[in-house]
C-alpha cells in the first residue's frame, strides 16, 4: 500500500466529488446531499489523521507537483502542487474535523428544520471544503491565491443562501466585495513576488528555491538574483509583504476590512461555524504562518501586523459588549480573537499564533454550533434579551457552550487560557524592547477584560435567569445530530490546550510544549528554529529572555483580567431579571452599537469617493475610447456617403470621368516612358 502522502490530493478531492454529487443529484437523495458530504469529509478526516501521523514520523516535508498551468521557464511558470508539512498537516486536521462536524450538525439545523434548497447548501459546503483543503495544501503562493478566491466565492454563495430575503444577498455582496478589495492588493503582491523572485513556491524543490529562501539570500548575501525594481531589497520585501497583508486583513477580518464579518451572520449558523469562525477567516492567518520565512525578514511588516492585530482585538471586543443578538457577539469575538493571532505572529510568536489558531477553531466552532442549537430551540430568534433560563431546558448545549465560553474568556485550565496567555507573553517579551509592540500588548491585554465580560454576558443572558419570553420557557428540542458535534467539540475545547502548556512546563520542568516540538521538525526552512534565526539574525527583532517569573506574571495578569471581566458580568447579568446595563453608557453605547460608524464610512467611501472616480472613468471610456472606435467607423461611413455621389446617373459625367482618367494615364505613362 502506498504511503498516505500519495493520497494527499484525495483529501481535497473527496469533498469535490461530494460537491458534484450534491449539485447534480442532491434533489434525488434522501438527505439532499448531506450524506455524500458527511462521507466525503469523514474520509478526508481519516486521511488527514493518517497524514498527520505520517508527518509526525517524517523529517522532510512532502511536496508533489500536480499540474503545470503555464510552462515557461522565464520569467516564471505557474504550477499546482501539494506541500504537506507540519503546519499544513495540523491545519488539514482542523479543517476536516470541523467540516465533518458541521456537516453532521447541518442535518439537524437544516434538514430537520425543513429548509428548502438543500442541494445548493450541501454543494456549497462541499465546494468550500474542497477549496479550503486545497488552499491548505497549496505549495506555492499563486495556487494559494486561486483557492483563496474560491473560498471567498463559497462564502458568498453560502452567506446568501436565503437569497429571497433582503438582507442575505446584501450581506453576501458586502462580504465578497470587502474581501475582494483586500485580495486586490494580494494579487498585486503575488504578481510582485513572481516578478521579483521568479517563483512563488513556499518550499524549494530540486533545483529551484523557495521565495523566502531567495529573499533571505538577498538580504544576507547578494541581491543579484532577485529583481527589486530599483528599491532597496529590505524596502521592497516590506512592500510585498504589506501587499499580501491586504488580502490577509480582508480574509481574517482585521481593521479596517472587518465590516463584512458581522453581516455574514445572515448565513445559516453551520456556515458561520465553519467558514466565519474556524476555517475561512483562518486562511489569512494561515497564509502569514505559511509565508513566515518571508514575513520574518521584514520587521516593519511584523510591527504593522502586531499593531493592527492588537488594535483589532480591542476594537472588536468593545463592540461585542453591547450587541443584542447572540451571533453578533460571536462575530465580533471572532474578529477580536483573530486580532490576537495576528498580534502573536507579528510579535515573532509563530508557535503561539498557530496554537491560538488551533484552539480558537475548536472553541469558536463549538460556540457557533451551540448558538445554532439555541437558535433552533428559540425558533430562529437570535435576540438574547428574549432568551433566558435555557440551561435547564437544554443541558447538553449549556455545558458545552459553557466549556467554549470558558475557553474563549481564557480561564484556566481550558484551552483558550494557554494559547491566549502564550500570545500575550510573546508580545510582552518583545514589547519590553520596543514601544510599538508594548502598545499592541497593552491593547491585547485590555481586550482580555472585555472578552471575559462579553462572553459571560452572553452566557448569562442566554442560559441563566428567568425565561423572558414564552418560547424561552419551552424551547424546541432537537436530536442527537446536533448534540453530538457539540459534545465532541466541548471535550476538545477542554483538552486541546494540553498540546502546549508552556507555563506549566516552565514551572514543573516537564516537557509539555508538544506543539513547539511539532514545529521543530520539518523542512529546514520551515521550522521554528529557522524562523527564530531569521527574526534575530536578519531582522534584528530581539525578545527579552525567556524567564519563568515573566511568564507566570503575564499569565497571572491575563487570568486576573479575564476573571475580573467574568466577575463584572456575573454581578450585572447573572440575576433573575437582568436589565440592559449598557444603556447607562449612553452615547458611547450608540457609537459602539453602530460599530463606530465604520459601515457607514465604508459606504460613503464607495458611494461618495469611488463612485465618482468610477463615473469619471466611465465617461472617459465611453467618450474617448468608444468615441475613438466610433469615430473610425464614422469616418468610413461619412467618406462613403460623400464618395457615392459620383454616381450621378448622367452618362456624360461618366464619359467625362473616363476621358480625364485616360488623359492622366497617358500623361503619366508619357512622362515615365520618355515620350515627350
Amino acid at each position, binding site marked *: 500500500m502506498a504511503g498516505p502522502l500519495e493520497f494527499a490530493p484525495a483529501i481535497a478531492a473527496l469533498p469535490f466529488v461530494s460537491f458534484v454529487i450534491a449539485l447534480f443529484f442532491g434533489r434525488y437523495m434522501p438527505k439532499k446531499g448531506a450524506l455524500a458530504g458527511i462521507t466525503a469529509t469523514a474520509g478526508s478526516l481519516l486521511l488527514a489523521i493518517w497524514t498527520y501521523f505520517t508527518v509526525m514520523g517524517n523529517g522532510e516535508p512532502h511536496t508533489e507537483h500536480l499540474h503545470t498551468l503555464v510552462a515557461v521557464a522565464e520569467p516564471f511558470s505557474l504550477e499546482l502542487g501539494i506541500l504537506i508539512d507540519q503546519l499544513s498537516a495540523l491545519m488539514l486536521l482542523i479543517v476536516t474535523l470541523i467540516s465533518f462536524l458541521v456537516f453532521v450538525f447541518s442535518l439537524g439545523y437544516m434538514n430537520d428544520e425543513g429548509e428548502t434548497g438543500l442541494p445548493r447548501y450541501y454543494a456549497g459546503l462541499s465546494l468550500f471544503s474542497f477549496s479550503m483543503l486545497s488552499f491548505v495544501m497549496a505549495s506555492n503562493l499563486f495556487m494559494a491565491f486561486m483557492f483563496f478566491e474560491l473560498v471567498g466565492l463559497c462564502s458568498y454563495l453560502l452567506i446568501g443562501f436565503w437569497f429571497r430575503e433582503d438582507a442575505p444577498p446584501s450581506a453576501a455582496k458586502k462580504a465578497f466585495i470587502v474581501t475582494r478589495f483586500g485580495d486586490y492588493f494580494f494579487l498585486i503582491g503575488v504578481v510582485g513576488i513572481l516578478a521579483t523572485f521568479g517563483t512563488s513556491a513556499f518550499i524549494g524543490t530540486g533545483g529551484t528555491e523557495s521565495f523566502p529562501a531567495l529573499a533571505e539570500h538577498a538580504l544576507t548575501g547578494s541581491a543579484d538574483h532577485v529583481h527589486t525594481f530599483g528599491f532597496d531589497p529590505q524596502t521592497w520585501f516590506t512592500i510585498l509583504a504589506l501587499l499580501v497583508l491586504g488580502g490577509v486583513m480582508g480574509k481574517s477580518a482585521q481593521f479596517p476590512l472587518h465590516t463584512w464579518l458581522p453581516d455574514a451572520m445572515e448565513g445559516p449558523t453551520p456556515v458561520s461555524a465553519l467558514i466565519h469562525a474556524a476555517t475561512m477567516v483562518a486562511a489569512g492567518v494561515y497564509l502569514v504562518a505559511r509565508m513566515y520565512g518571508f514575513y520574518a525578514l521584514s520587521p516593519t511588516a511584523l510591527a504593522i501586523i502586531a499593531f493592527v492585530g492588537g488594535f483589532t482585538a480591542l476594537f472588536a471586543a468593545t463592540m461585542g459588549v453591547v450587541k443584542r443578538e447572540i451571533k453578533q457577539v460571536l462575530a465580533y469575538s471572532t474578529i477580536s480573537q483573530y486580532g490576537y493571532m495576528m498580534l502573536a505572529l507579528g510579535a515573532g510568536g509563530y508557535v503561539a499564533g498557530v496554537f491560538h489558531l488551533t484552539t480558537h477553531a475548536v472553541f469558536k466552532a463549538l460556540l457557533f454550533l451551540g448558538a445554532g442549537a439555541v437558535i433552533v430551540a428559540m425558533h430562529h430568534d437570535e435576540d438574547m434579551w428574549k432568551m433566558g433560563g435555557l440551561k435547564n431546558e437544554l443541558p447538553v448545549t449549556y455545558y458545552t457552550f459553557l466549556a467554549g465560553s470558558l475557553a474563549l474568556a481564557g480561564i484556566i485550565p481550558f484551552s483558550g487560557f494557554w494559547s491566549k496567555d502564550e500570545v500575550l507573553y510573546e508580545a510582552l517579551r518583545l514589547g519590553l524592547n520596543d514601544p510599538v509592540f508594548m502598545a499592541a500588548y497593552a491593547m491585547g491585554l485590555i481586550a482580555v477584560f472585555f472578552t471575559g465580560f462579553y462572553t459571560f454576558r452572553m452566557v448569562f443572558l442566554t442560559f441563566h435567569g428567568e425565561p423572558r419570553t414564552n418560547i424561552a420557557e419551552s424551547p424546541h428540542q432537537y436530536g442527537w445530530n446536533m448534540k453530538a458535534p457539540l459534545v465532541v467539540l466541548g471535550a476538545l475545547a477542554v483538552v486541546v490546550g494540553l498540546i502546549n502548556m508552556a507555563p506549566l512546563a516552565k514551572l514543573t520542568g516537564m516537557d509539555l510544549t508538544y506543539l513547539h516540538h511539532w514545529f521543530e521538525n520539518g523542512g529546514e526552512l520551515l521550522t521554528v528554529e529557522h524562523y527564530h534565526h531569521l527574526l534575530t539574525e536578519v531582522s534584528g527583532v530581539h525578545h527579552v529572555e525567556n524567564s519563568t517569573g515573566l511568564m507566570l506574571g503575564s499569565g497571572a495578569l491575563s487570568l486576573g483580567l479575564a476573571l475580573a471581566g467574568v466577575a463584572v458580568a456575573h454581578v450585572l447579568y447573572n440575576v433573575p431579571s437582568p436589565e440592559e446595563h449598557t444603556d447607562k453608557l449612553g452615547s458611547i453605547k450608540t457609537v459602539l452599537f453602530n460599530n463606530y460608524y465604520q459601515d457607514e464610512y465604508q459606504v460613503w467611501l464607495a458611494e461618495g469617493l469611488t463612485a465618482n472616480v468610477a463615473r469619471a472613468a466611465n465617461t472617459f471610456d465611453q467618450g474617448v475610447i468608444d468615441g475613438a472606435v466610433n469615430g473610425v467607423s464614422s469616418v468610413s461611413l461619412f467618406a462613403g456617403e460623400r464618395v*457615392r*455621389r459620383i*454616381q*450621378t*446617373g*448622367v*452618362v*456624360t459625367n461618366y*464619359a*467625362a470621368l473616363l*476621358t480625364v482618367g485616360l488623359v492622366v494615364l497617358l500623361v503619366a505613362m508619357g512622362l515615365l516612358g520618355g515620350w515627350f
Partner: protein
Amino acid sequence: MIAAKYYLLLSAAVFCIGLFGILTRRNALIFLMSIELMLNAANINLVAFSAQHGNLSGQVFSLFTMALAAAEVAVGIGIILVLYRNFDDVDVTTATSMRW
C-alpha cells in the same frame, strides 16, 4: 505620300471632336453621331497604318469595323426609342434613375 504622323494627327482630331460631342451634347441622337465619329477616327488610323506598312489587312479590317458600326447604330436607335418611351425625352441627362 503624306507621312503617317499627319494621318495620326487627323485621326486624333476626329476622335477628340467626337469625344467633345459626347461630353457636351445632351441629345441622344447627336450622342450617337458623335460615337460614329469616334469609330471613323479609328478607321482612319487603321488605314493610315495599312498604307505605312503596305499590308492590306488594315483596310480590310476597317471595312469590318464599318459594318460593326452600322450594326451598333441600329441597336442604339432602338435603345433611344425605348428611352424616349420611358422618359418622354431624348435628353440623356434626364435618364438618371440608376444613381446613388
